[in-house]
Structures are given as structure tokens and as C-alpha cells.
């Protein structure tokens, strides 16, 4: 078998070779690109909008916070009914027999009511007898009774007012919920819930699944994202806060969310807004594979020959031939 060295020499036989300083080109490129990056860094800096804490949320929008926490108890939030990988409450996305969300099951177990409300309150009730009594009343009540309290309290929250940072609702039979919620709100406003949801019995922590899911259930964070033009209908994933460029290379991925069938409730061939995430990931996987297989794909591999951009790229090569072809 001939080595590649011989093959390259054979490949270039008859081709005029010229001096070319590859290392000099690389060094110049390193310098030029470095200068561009330095100019960008010096003039424009980089985005760093401070993260939202649960304390920010509870202080800025206590009604949304309490409404969300009540929704967790009622299993009425996004995370409570999510399905895999957090719980078995929802079916997850599927397309015909393709249901990878269900296949891989519950691997990051989150019980929203317990994780976001009951357990933090149990920890907070350590030296708070009123809260301890309220928690015991809640846990000893039947699920029907809990549902009745939650229903009445949730309806009252629609007309709640904020006084001295606390949430005030019309008088009614809400059982222990007002005590539980005012304590949870107080813990959250002090910053304690940020710690309780992240530490979760450990000292070192790098996993923010619980606080992010909880904040995602509320409307405060998504409202801020809307103001920052980050939401999905505005091609959110590829945007960045401020006027900075974001992940613009995700344009094709985010585009699919804006078009049929992925923006439609009914869709076509079982693909619609309800399983858009699965459908778009499958589509992008296929498109990426198609890009990788361009060298073997008729038409796609022939387009460069049909569209004469290569004649611009290799002007030096084609110009003499064009001149020679003239009469």
C-alpha cells in the first residue's frame, strides 16, 4: 500500500507550487484575532445580569410567590405535573411509539409539594410552635379537606393585597394555610428558602435543580425574562441579556419553535406544540446527520458545482482558463 506522503505528491503532480509560510500565517491570525477579542472585551465588556434569588421573588412579588407555593401543595404547577425525569405525574412527550422521556423514567425525583413547601416548613418549625401546630393540622387533615382549603385560599389569592411585605386575603376558612404560607413567605424573604432548597441536608452544593424548578413554576422570573426579551416566542434560547449577542448559532433550532407544526396545537402527523421539544430535537439530529453526510448525498454534494461560488474562491485558478477560452 502506498503511504499518504507519496499520494499527496502524486495528487499535486503538475500543479504549480508556491512558497507559503503557514506558521507566519498562524502567528498573524493569533495576533489579529486576539486584538479583535481584546477590543470587544475592552469596549463592550460582557453580560452579567445578577441572578434572581427566591428572596428577590418573595420580596418583589409576594402574591405570586404564595400563589405558586399553594399551587405546589395542590399539585397544580408545571413541576408538580411534569412527569419524567422528576416524577410520574405526567406522561411526558412522545411521538407515536417514540417516548424517550418515559423510557428513561424518573431519575431526578422531585416531589414538588414536599420539596418546595412541606420540608422547608418542617425545618423552619424547629423553634416555631405556631408553625408546627399548623403543619400538623395540615398533615392530619384528609386530602378532601386539604383540597377544600386550597381551593378557597387560591381563589382568595386572586384578590390578595400586600401589607408590610405580607400577603393579606379576605377572611375565610383556609385552615392552617395562612400560617403556613406567611411563614414560608417570611423564610423566603429572609433568604432562608434559597439555602433550604439548595443545601437539602448537605454542606457542599452545586445542584440548583430544586430552586430553579420552583422559580420556574412562578411567573416572576418569566416576567423578568419577558422584559429582557428572552422568552421562547422571541427566539429566547439564542438571546442574551442586554444588547449582547447570544447563542446565535442556535438560530435554526429556535426557529423551528416559531413555525408549523411546532407552534400549532393540532399540528400534523402527530407533531405539534405539545411535543415540539421532542420533535425539534429529532429534526435537528436528522439535519446534523444530513450535514455530516453531505459528501455522500447526491444533490447536496452537487450544489457547490452548480453554484459557481467556487469560481470566486479560486479566482487565481479559473481566471487564466477564462482568458484562454476567449476568442
Amino acid at each position, binding site marked *: 500500500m502506498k503511504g499518504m506522503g507519496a499520494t499527496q505528491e502524486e*495528487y499535486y503532480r503538475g500543479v504549480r507550487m508556491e512558497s507559503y509560510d503557514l506558521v507566519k500565517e498562524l502567528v498573524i491570525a*493569533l495576533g489579529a484575532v486576539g486584538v479583535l477579542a481584546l477590543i470587544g472585551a475592552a469596549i463592550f465588556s460582557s453580560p452579567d*445580569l445578577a441572578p434572581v434569588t427566591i428572596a428577590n421573588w418573595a420580596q418583589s412579588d409576594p402574591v405570586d410567590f404564595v400563589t405558586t407555593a399553594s399551587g405546589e401543595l395542590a399539585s397544580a404547577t408545571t413541576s408538580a405535573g411534569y412527569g419524567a425525569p422528576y416524577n410520574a405525574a405526567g406522561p411526558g412527550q412522545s411521538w407515536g411509539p417514540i417516548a424517550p422521556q418515559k*423510557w428513561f423514567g424518573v431519575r431526578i425525583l422531585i416531589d414538588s409539594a414536599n420539596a418546595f413547601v412541606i420540608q422547608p416548613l418542617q425545618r423552619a418549625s424547629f423553634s416555631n410552635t405556631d408553625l408546627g401546630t399548623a403543619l400538623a393540622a395540615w398533615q392530619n387533615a384528609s386530602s378532601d379537606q386539604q383540597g377544600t382549603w386550597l381551593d378557597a385560599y387560591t381563589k382568595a389569592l386572586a384578590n390578595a393585597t400586600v401589607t408590610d411585605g405580607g400577603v393579606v386575603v379576605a377572611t375565610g376558612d383556609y385552615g392552617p394555610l395562612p400560617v403556613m404560607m406567611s411563614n414560608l413567605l417570611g423564610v423566603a424573604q429572609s433568604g432562608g428558602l434559597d439555602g433550604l432548597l439548595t443545601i437539602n441536608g448537605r454542606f457542599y452544593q452545586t445542584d440548583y435543580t430544586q430552586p430553579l424548578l420552583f422559580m420556574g413554576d412562578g411567573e416572576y422570573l418569566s416576567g423578568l425574562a419577558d422584559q429582557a426579551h428572552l422568552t421562547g416566542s422571541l427566539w429566547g434560547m439564542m438571546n442574551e441579556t442586554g444588547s449582547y449577542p447570544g447563542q446565535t448559532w442556535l438560530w435554526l433550532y429556535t426557529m423551528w419553535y416559531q413555525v408549523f407544526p411546532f407552534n400549532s396545537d393540532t399540528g400534523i402527523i402527530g407533531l405539534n406544540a405539545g411535543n415540539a421539544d421532542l420533535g425539534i430535537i429529532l429534526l435537528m439530529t436528522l439535519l446534523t446527520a444530513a450535514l455530516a453526510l453531505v*459528501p455522500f448525498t447526491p444533490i447536496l454534494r452537487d450544489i457547490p458545482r452548480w453554484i459557481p461560488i467556487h469560481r470566486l*474562491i479560486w479566482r487565481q*485558478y479559473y481566471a487564466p482558463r477564462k482568458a484562454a477560452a476567449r476568442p
Partner: protein
Amino acid sequence: MSAPSSVGGSTPGKPESWTVRLRQGIDRHLPMDHLLPDRQPYYVGSWVYVFGVVTIAALFWVILSGVILSFMGPQWWHDSGVGRFVNSLHFWSVQLFFFFMVLHLWGQYFMAGWRKGRAATWMIGVVIFGISILTAFTGYLSQQNFASQFVAINAKDAMNGAGIGAFFNVLNFGQMYGLHVMLLPIGVTFLVVAHIVMVRSRGVVKPIDAEGGAKS
């Protein structure tokens, strides 16, 4: 008097030696004058060839600034002016890296750069593009700011819907940070080296009409 044994240098060695076979293979496939050639076909003077070199240059700055950021820790750049500057250098290097890489990709497409046994080079390039997107994505998730929070909360649905979220938890900062600063950059760097070696091993492809067609 016994024959002097050879110390150092390049001796023929026993042909059955794995070491000798490896050395001979490298000599055959990538001799130094192919790895660092001082002569190229005259049509390589086109500016489109620069896109590949500047992509590598941008990757150098991405890695250099990224190494400083990872050495100083994820909190440093939020609290320090110098840290913010290094992060900005990282941010703009990444933007330049993708900009040049996309130009390189389109340039190679319209040059049909996969011809004459170069399909694997093209395919590895596509894989590098994909892993680079994943690396940047984990970078955005590792910023520890508002954008990270919102990207994570939204991206989890895409990951979970495709079943990937069970293993690749975008809400887990530790997992995303580890992937961003170590595994994925190693993958990109390794594949870029392989890509460059393949380009240098075969040499740049001839203009389309020089050998007819755009088939691989």
C-alpha cells in the same frame, strides 16, 4: 570487541516492533514536510483558506481565557474587574470562534472540500461544530447569572422531552460546569487536532473542475 549499541537517534529497529511500526506509520502518513509545508498549490492564495486558520486562532484565545477563568474559579469574574475582563475576552473569543467556524464551514461547502478521500475530514468538522455548540451551551449555563437561570429553565424541557434530561441535567450547575471546563473542551481540542492532521495529511483539495465533480 562487540558492536556498539545504538543510543538515541532513528534506527531501523526490528520490523515487528510496535514502536517501529507506529513511527514508520507516522512517517508515511504525516511526514514533517506535510505537517508544516513551506510550499502550497498556487490557488491556496484565496482568502477563504484564512477562515480555518482564524478559527484555530479564536479557539486558542477561547482556551487561554477559559483556563484562566477555570483556574480562578466560577465566582471570580463576578466580583473582580480583572475577572470580568477575562470573562469578556472569553465571551468575544467564543463569538469570533463561531463566526469564523461558520464561514469556514460555508467556504468548505462551496469548495466541496470533501472530495478525493476527504469525507472524514468534513464529517469530523461537523462533529466539532456540534460539540462546540454543546460546549458553548454549557458555558451559558455556567455563567451563574440571570441568563443562565432562564436558559436552564427553558432548556430543561427540550432535554427532558428528548429523554436526555435524565442524564444531562441543565439545572445542575456542577454537572454543566464540569462538562464545560473539562470534558467538552478536551473533545473539541482533540477533534480539531485530528481535523488539522487529516487536512495536512491529504493536502488541500484541488479546484472543482480540476478533477471533475464534487463527489467524495
